[in-house]
């Protein structure tokens, strides 16, 4: 069903009494979490990466808050190395929703001396995002940052709370995490502290795609198969572009690929694929043998504990 066909037909109101499907149960949990964040936190913000998980979050926010506006702005941390398709998608989506967009710029953090650009051919701004994010959270005094992280992404995420506490340095300390019982979330923080909130923590990559297919959620085009010029580096297919010129000895070639996550262009790899719709991607996933991050994120490959270290520093 396309979003604009909603509510146009005059039909008898439905009766929703039976048990929920798995997707409906996950959706219900996420809507509850979003509303709880809005009710318990003074200044929440929704982190939007332009990726599929944040596109799902926006649909869930519509379900949680319409006909009112979202009780929080949308924040994009712009590395300056984004896929142009993702920026266009961001602007189009925010305009369609009529919501407020804030942009935190990594380039500005570098210019102001808050962050130091990595050097060398494998330099990436992925880690620098953390500094810009924490500065933005502090500047606006946000006490809750809603994100699209999922527990199935990575081993270190499996123990993540739904409401994950960050101290005044934005750091995550496993010992400080609060037990979460029932659906009684504790979102209380002191000034300077905040919580990260993960409404789709319990979703898997497959759930996300099933939901995108079911809801007809729009995504940046690069999620679907397209042809582009790539090089093979560290076992990943990287798009050739202004920030990722081919290194000595690398031979660019054209391939039909899609992206499974959209991050910084310098560290997000593509996979060979011919899937042009969410349904075709689900079919590919069913046959796939490589995990999402393993396939496409150079930043997680350097050490097994890489994600955990970044989380401690305040990464998403």
């Amino acid at each position, binding site marked *: 069903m396309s979003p604009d066909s909603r509510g146009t037909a005059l039909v008898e109101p439905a009766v929703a009494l039976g*048990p929920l499907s*798995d997707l409906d149960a996950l959706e219900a949990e996420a*809507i509850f979490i979003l*509303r709880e964040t809005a009710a318990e936190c003074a200044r929440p913000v929704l982190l939007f990466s332009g990726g599929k998980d944040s596109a799902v979050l926006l649909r869930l926010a519509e379900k949680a808050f*319409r006909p*009112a506006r979202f009780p929080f702005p949308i924040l994009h941390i712009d590395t300056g190395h984004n896929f142009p398709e993702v920026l266009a998608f961001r602007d189009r989506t925010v305009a369609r929703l009529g919501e407020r967009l804030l942009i935190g710029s990594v380039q500005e953090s570098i210019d102001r001396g808050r962050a130091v650009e990595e050097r060398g051919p494998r330099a990436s701004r992925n880690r620098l995002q953390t500094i810009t994010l924490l500065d933005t959270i502090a500047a606006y005094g946000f006490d809750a940052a809603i994100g699209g992280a999922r527990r199935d992404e990575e081993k270190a995420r499996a123990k993540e709370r739904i409401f994950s506490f960050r101290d005044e340095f934005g750091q995550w300390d*496993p010992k400080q995490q*609060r037990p*979460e019982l029932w659906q*009684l979330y504790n979102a209380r923080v002191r000034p300077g502290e905040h919580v990260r909130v993960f409404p789709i923590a319990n979703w898997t990559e497959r759930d996300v795609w099933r939901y995108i297919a079911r809801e007809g959620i729009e995504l940046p085009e690069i999620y679907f198969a397209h042809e582009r010029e790539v090089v093979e580096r560290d076992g990943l297919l990287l798009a050739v572009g202004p920030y990722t010129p081919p290194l000595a000895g690398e031979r660019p070639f054209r391939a039909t690929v899609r992206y499974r996550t959209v991050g910084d262009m310098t560290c997000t790899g593509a996979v060979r694929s011919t899937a042009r719709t969410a349904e075709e991607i689900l079919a590919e996933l069913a046959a796939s043998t490589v995990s999402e991050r393993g396939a496409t994120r150079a930043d997680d490959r350097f050490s097994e504990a890489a994600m955990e270290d970044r989380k401690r520093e305040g990464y998403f």
Partner: protein
Amino acid sequence: MAGAPDLLRLATAGSVDDGKSTLIGRLLYETRQICEDQYRAVERASRERGADYVDLALLTDGLRAEREQGITIDVAYRHFATPRRRFILADTPGHVQYTRNMVTGASTADLALVLVDARKGIVEQTRRHVFLAALLRVPHLVLCLNKMDLVGYAEERFACLRAELGALVARLAFRSVTVIPIAALHGDNVTARSPRMPWYGGPTLLEHLEHVPLGAGAEQGPLRFPVQLVIRPRTADQPDYRGYAGQLASGAVRVGDQVLVLPGGLTTRVAAIDTFDGPLAAAAAPRNVTLRLADELDVSRGDLLCHPASPPRVGQDLDAVLCWLTPAVLQPRGRYLLKHTTRTVRALVREVHYRIDIASFQPDHAATVLELNDIGRVTLRATAPLAYDPYAQSRATGAFILIDEVTHHTVAGGLLLPPGAEDVLAAA
């Protein structure tokens, strides 16, 4: 169509070395949740540790500190799915802070899976885990007798342990209790029937998990709708819209129903049930809906809507069981924030009546304070009335947490009892 899959939440528990990690790793592996790169990483790690087999237990190992210590110390959530069902598994470590972790995992579980080493039989940990699952009102209990290979796959051993377990659960209010003989390391009776235990006629673990009935849950009870958020667009096209958003905690609501607003006590009618996907004529728990009411009443977050004929209890003096979750001791007359449904009030712990020994299920009247991992029977006085049900009747409207006002730590989970209740395990 065979019908969409549904969602089952389960919590696992077992003492150290009973084979819980191995079993979970096998469930994930056999339901194809493990990708090749993850499997290869585990293969590599197994070799580094000098194991001569692929240690599936490593698949579920989490944080670095824990890896270094070789132990699991926090609840981890795992996901797997079959065409029939999606599973969310709360993996609760069995030793350090076992009560805190098990209570956390069990609080949302539809099913508790407790591992027993077939050689050792029922140990104190088994009794604790079964007791906590019963106390937290997890509807279904599965006891896996693991390491059947080490007792020669013997039917007699199984029969003997099953009888002992039957005695253990006899007075507990589970909807179902199932005992399954398995060997997690080799996969017997986990997802495939074991040829080495032909005497066993029951389901494999996965078959059982796929078929255990989820129905007759919250949607059957009396209407309970805690108001979570008031939706007021105040826009040009919706100047007067006022909707009460929330999740139905139990029961069902229909357009036209008379509803009572608690604790205020006024009644009105449901004018509309709105959702983003269109209006509904009726909706049941656990759906999220936005209700519009016929009259302009002063309704806000924390209020509870119900049918006038089946109201919950309303009170400020509360009998409860507390699970103490923090190293700071519960002080007599301690003051805390109490969060119950969508309502937060202040509360004073008036009295700790006794601590419950969770291995023997017996009260220890000598105890006057509660320490980390203790469970105790208390009375509380709240600064404002709560509309609640006994936890045994409704988890959603019978549970609360206590929050320290200064540190903001969640210090306790609480289960509300009928006034004056003595038997904390009594059926509703």
